[in-house]
């Protein structure tokens, strides 16, 4: 046994480094081989990656649904799809995209990237992380199995009561929708808790809050927003389920309930949700801009303030989705003002990104091209958002294709384009190979131009009076051409995304070998090999600036002394990231998986009988106890004074 610093425990240090250290860490941090290792892993990279891949599958599925809708809408009075099927289609499209793609993929990117970017070995609660993934998967699979069996939900992605209530949606469709919410909300909250803890406590020594990469800031603000907004939809959907299954009357106006209670609770979550999707996207944009313009993002403090301000304002605007419900008009003025105020931080961010390009040495590789696409598209979507924030204008455009245009501009422009850029950018980190630049450029131009063709006409359609969520429309309203054009655009977008995926799969196996830092990027995730080892870093890096790899080109400053015979993490102080303690990190285990399966059985059977909640609690409790019960002999370590 290597004896170091006068102690009996093996630690990394000058005497244990290089290949010998790697071998020790490999043993401490490695997963079991094969399927068992896959099932029990608690490695944030493996879990993050499978989260991302699953979300991409849901993007594909949701996208295919939208293509079917677009075919139906390409011509007036089309008889292709029945009203019932169409209603399931847009409900499933919206639900899949929002709950199973956009929010999870953003959290998953953070699960993968944040520990690397802040220089730690694993996420704060790795077993919770594993649990979260299985819950998410279970919720998504349940929803889609129901859809394939033709009992998919059909009340829209925000399932307004009383349409979604027991009287007007008999059967199990809406219960399945509401339970899917429960699954994804448990998963989302779990990840948010991990992210807050990992970001606040596990940053590399010296990475003060003011030196955190902007993506990490985005992830932190997002996680806090998840924590304060998801309980709202959890409450709303529990009320809905209990109205439907055990006869409560929360939303029943005949028994002192009220339909609008649902809308308040849903949008109190629903609006923050859209920034939960957008802020990580903004984080990708910052990282990419930084790397490809060879300059730190302009006005970092303003960028951080803008993120925080957006996060706070997001909780004060939910009523802008309810301008037509006839609430007191004076109250509306407040929500108009708050919604418009969001344009200030958004405008500042847009300015700073462009200013970074202006004063940098931009290299227009694929990721930076997506930044440009993002700016163009998101600004259009944001400006139409500001129009909708005006009560009178919204009274006209609410629930029309104008709104559909708005939210695809901000969602695809503000989240999907940055994601495509981010995937291209971090692809080498995940697999050690580069994506093809040529194919990447082709799919970039297709998706960017195809998107404008698909969604710009929707603004016009909305102003020409076309409501959303109609399975068909009469000829002669002047809507035909625009709809047809939009369908063509949708297919170009789909082809582009398909091409992107083909490029990714191909490059995964045959791409050029990348090396640790192929883009010469400044942040810590590029300090380790591509793909990184299970333990991320051999030694814990030390940070003295916002761009550590640009400022330390010869050697990476590190600290030593973590145990290598056990999984150990470094904890640092919240503000200044001063080393504060060492904590063990949990080993792989199958119990999170078992717990998730037990929870799944309980949730699903609770749709059929409320007793499932009572009975199902026991296996869940058993799994959780087994999960937390310490295994093996207690490891007592004398503290070295």
């Amino acid at each position, binding site marked *: 046994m290597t004896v170091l610093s006068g102690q009996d425990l093996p630690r990394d240090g000058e005497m244990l480094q290089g290949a010998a250290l790697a071998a020790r860490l490999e043993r401490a941090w490695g997963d079991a081989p094969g399927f068992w290792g896959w099932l029990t892993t608690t490695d944030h990279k493996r879990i993050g990656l499978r989260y991302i891949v699953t979300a991409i599958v849901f993007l594909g599925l949701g996208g295919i649904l939208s293509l079917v809708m677009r075919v139906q809408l390409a011509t007036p*009075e089309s*008889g292709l799809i029945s*009203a*019932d099927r169409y*209603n399931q289609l847009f409900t499933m499209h919206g639900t899949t995209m929002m709950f199973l793609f956009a929010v999870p993929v953003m959290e998953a990117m953070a699960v993968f990237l944040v520990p690397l970017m802040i220089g730690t070995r694993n996420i704060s609660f790795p077993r919770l992380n594993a649990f979260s993934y299985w819950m998410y998967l279970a919720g998504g699979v349940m929803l889609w199995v129901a859809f394939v069996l033709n009992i998919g939900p059909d009340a829209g992605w925000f399932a*307004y009561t*009383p*349409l979604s209530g027991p009287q*007007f949606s008999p059967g199990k469709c809406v219960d399945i929708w509401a339970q899917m919410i429960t699954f994804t909300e448990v998963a989302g909250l779990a990840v948010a808790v991990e992210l807050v803890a990992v970001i606040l406590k596990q940053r590399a020594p010296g990475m003060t809050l003011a030196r955190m990469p902007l993506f990490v800031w985005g992830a932190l603000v997002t996680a806090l927003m998840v924590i304060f907004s998801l309980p709202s939809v959890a409450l709303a959907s529990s009320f809905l389920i209990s109205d439907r299954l055990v006869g409560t009357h929360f939303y029943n*106006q005949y028994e002192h309930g009220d*339909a*609008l209670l649902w809308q308040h609770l849903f949008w109190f979550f629903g609006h923050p949700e859209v920034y939960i999707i957008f802020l990580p996207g903004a984080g990708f944009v910052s990282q990419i801009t930084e790397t490809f313009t*060879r*300059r*730190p993002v302009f*006005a970092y403090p*303003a960028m951080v303030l803008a993120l925080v301000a957006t996060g706070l304002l997001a909780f004060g605007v939910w009523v802008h989705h309810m301008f037509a*419900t*006839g609430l007191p008009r004076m109250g509306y*003025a407040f929500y*108009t003002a708050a919604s*418009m105020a969001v*344009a*200030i931080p958004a*405008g*500042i961010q*847009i*300015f*700073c990104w*462009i*200013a*970074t*390009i202006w*004063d*940098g*040495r931009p*290299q227009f590789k694929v990721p930076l091209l997506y930044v*440009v696409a993002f700016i163009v598209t998101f*600004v259009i979507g944001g*400006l139409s958002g*500001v*129009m909708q924030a*005006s009560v*009178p*204008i919204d*009274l*006209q*455009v*609410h*629930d029309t294709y104008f709104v559909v245009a708005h939210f695809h501009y901000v969602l695809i422009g503000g989240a999907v384009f940055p994601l495509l850029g981010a995937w291209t950018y971090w692809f080498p980190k995940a697999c050690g190979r580069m994506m093809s630049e040529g194919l990447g450029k082709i799919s970039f131009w297709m998706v960017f131009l195809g998107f404008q063709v698909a969604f710009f006409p929707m603004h016009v359609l909305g102003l*020409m*009076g076309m*409501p959303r969520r109609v399975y068909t429309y009469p*000829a*002669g*309203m*002047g809507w035909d051409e625009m709809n047809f054009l939009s369908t063509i655009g949708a297919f170009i977008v789909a082809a582009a995304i398909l091409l992107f995926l083909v490029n990714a799969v191909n490059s995964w196996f045959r791409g050029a070998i990348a090396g640790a830092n192929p883009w*010469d990027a400044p942040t810590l995730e590029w300090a380790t090999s591509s793909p990184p080892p299970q333990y991320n870093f051999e030694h814990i890096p030390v940070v003295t600036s916002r*761009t550590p790899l*640009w400022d330390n080109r010869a050697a990476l400053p590190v600290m030593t002394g973590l145990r290598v015979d056990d999984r150990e993490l470094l904890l640092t102080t919240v503000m200044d990231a001063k080393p504060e303690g060492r904590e063990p990190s949990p080993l792989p285990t199958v119990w999170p998986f078992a717990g998730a399966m037990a929870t799944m059985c309980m949730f699903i059977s609770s749709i059929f009988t409320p007793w499932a909640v009572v009975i199902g609690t026991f296996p869940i409790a058993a799994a959780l106890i087994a999960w937390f019960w310490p295994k093996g002999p207690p490891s007592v370590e004398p503290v070295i004074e």
Partner: protein
Amino acid sequence: MRRAALALPLLLAGCEGIQAVGHPAGRDAILIDRLFVVFEIVTGIFFVLTMAFLFAAYWRRRGHREDGLPDDLAAPSKSPLLRTVLFMWTGAVILSLIGLALASFFTDRGLAHPNPENRPVVSIELTGNQWWWDVVYHFQDPSKDFRTANELHLPLGTPAMVYLKSNDVIHSFWVPNLAGKQDLIPGRVNDIVLVPQRLGQYRGQCAEFCGLQHAHMAFDVIVDTPADYQRWVARHEQTAQLPTDPRAIAGYKFFMTRQCSSCHAIAGTEAGATIGPDLTHVATRKSIAAGTLANGIGPLHAWVADPQGVKPGNNMPYVGLNADELHNVVAYLETLK
């Protein structure tokens, strides 16, 4: 569906713009249209500015884009120019937003004044049903109240107070040419004022997703001259006359003795149910089944013969009339003027 496809082009031929925000014909719609132009200009300016800056940033560095990075450049930009411009930009954004918010607020105040000059108004109670509109015109003298469906007539220039209710789920009342939309929420009563300022025929449509046939929940709005409007009201205050034509008499008997009368009302007869639209003057309407078919003998045949084929899932069942019964009933419905 096929039949609907045949009938609708007739109804709508050349009717582009009868359901459009951009052809305002009512007070609210005109005010909103103006506000929209203001927003378009301001946001347009900011769009152009942003794009110009983006393009300039791209242009400035063309040529030496592939340059390697001298290490001393890795510091954050301290350009005083950029910093000044950032402050100016933020200031401009804030000022413009204040301007837009004020413009929006004052327009909204304009919309909120139901009846500035305290003129007599038309009072209409509109109730949403899956998937049709029940309409009651109220008068000072309640005995004059009458009921109709899926069609509004409004006198030019006179404010119409529309009270909005729902019998089942949430719907939304929207006539883009006249005004913005308002939801019909069960358990609540909303209202909206329509002040039509141009003669014409407009189309409205339910804007809140309300289930299976949300797509087919439209209605017609006809803005009449006051004289025409009075004639229309006078006609609707009359109850239905008993038919004289033998076919229609047979149809009348069928209607009153079979299922029809258990759902529909025809004032002046014993049919008084309110499950379906009031049919007292159904023959005068522009369209039937909430804007799904143009009105006329053909479409009425199609509808009564097989409502589920025309508008799948709607709440009028397939009654199963034979050819004679069908002709008779439609002949009777045609007398309801």
